[in-house]
Structure formats: C-alpha cells, structure tokens
C-alpha cells in the first residue's frame, strides 16, 4: 500500500503540475476554465485514494461537492463567454 501511495502521489503531482501550466499559459479563458476543471478532478482523485488507503468514507460528500463546484463553475463561465460574444456581435 505504501508503494501504491507513493506512485499515485507522484503521478497526481505531475498531472496537477501539467494542469497548472495550462492555467498559466492557456491562450483563452475557456482553456483556463477547462484546466481548472481538470485540477479539481485531480483533487477528487487524491481524495479517493486517501479514502481507499486509509479505509474511511469521510471524504465522499466532499468529493461530490467538488464535482458539483466544477460543474457549476464551468457551465457558468461557458454561458457568460457565449453571451458576451453575442452582445459584441450585435453592437
């Protein structure tokens, strides 16, 4: 279990670093939103691994809350971006 924990920690850290690079570089707002979503998903994966290794369920509702926040966040920003664009076209 120790070995699994180390391997997954390294893999997830690399993944998080990749997502953060995309947030910093992302040419557009939507790219950044997408990368932030991925970062949240990586956080969720880390919560899952914690539950599996330490055999408890305390994080489950936190996991659901994290995915809800990711969902609401990306939908809101996507709507906002689309709306702003349409108004620009009209004016």
């Amino acid at each position, binding site marked *: 279990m120790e070995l699994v924990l180390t*391997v997954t920690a390294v*893999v997830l850290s690399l993944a998080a670093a990749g997502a953060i690079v995309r947030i910093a570089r992302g040419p557009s707002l939507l790219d950044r939103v997408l990368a932030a979503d*991925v970062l949240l998903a*990586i956080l969720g*994966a880390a919560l899952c691994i914690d539950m599996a290794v330490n055999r408890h369920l305390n994080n489950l509702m936190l996991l659901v809350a994290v995915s*809800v926040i990711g969902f609401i966040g990306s939908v809101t920003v*996507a709507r906002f971006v689309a709306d702003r664009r349409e108004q620009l076209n009209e004016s």
Partner: protein
Amino acid sequence: MNPDASAVDTAVDVVSAVFMIVGAVMSLAAAIGLLRFPDLMSRMHAATKPQVLGLFLLLAAVGLQLRTWWVWPVLLVAWIFQLLTVPVSAHMVGRAGYRTKHLHRELLSTDELEAVVLKAAEAAREQDSDGGR
C-alpha cells in the same frame, strides 16, 4: 486467520492497487492531453473523458478496500452523478468554444455545422433588419 481468507485479502489488495494506479494515470492522461493538443476542442476530449474511467476505477478501489456492502450504492450514486454532469459541462464549454471561434479550422477535416450556423446567422440578421424597419 486461515490461509484462504488472507489469500483473498491479498488478491483484493492487488486488484485495488492496480485500479488506483490506473485511475491516477488517467488523471495524468488528462494533463498530457491538456498540454499537447493544439486547440480547445481536442483538449476537451482529453480533459473530461479519461476522468470518467479514472473516477470509476478509484471508487471501485475504495469499495474493495472498505469491504462492506452498503458503500457500493453510495459510490454508485457518486459515479452516476459524475456521469450526468460531465457531458453537460463539456457540451456547454464546447458550444461556447465553437461559437467564439476558438477552434482552428485548418485542423478540421470536415465541418458540417459551419454552413448551418452561417445560415442561422443570416436568417437572424434578416429578421433583425426587418424588425428595425
């Protein structure tokens, strides 16, 4: 402890360990896709989809490790919840990306939506000018 039960225990441990590692690698796949793909739409394929499998594997690992039956429905609800939300947010971001011209046309081999969108925009403009008169 009899040897039979401990053998099963080890097998469950190994399976859940494999699930956890593959699940974590799926997150890495998302990050690699984010960095390597050229435009928003293909990045989205890499970003949202491997997470579905990744979370499934990780939740299965949690279920295997806890070894009680009543966690399975709970985990299933958490997973179905993700199944319901992921396509919606991907569709919203994708639609906004398409509308705001965030994709590179030269990377598309076929685009059967472009003509439809242009026609709709034309119709909307005509309606607007009719209303303005």
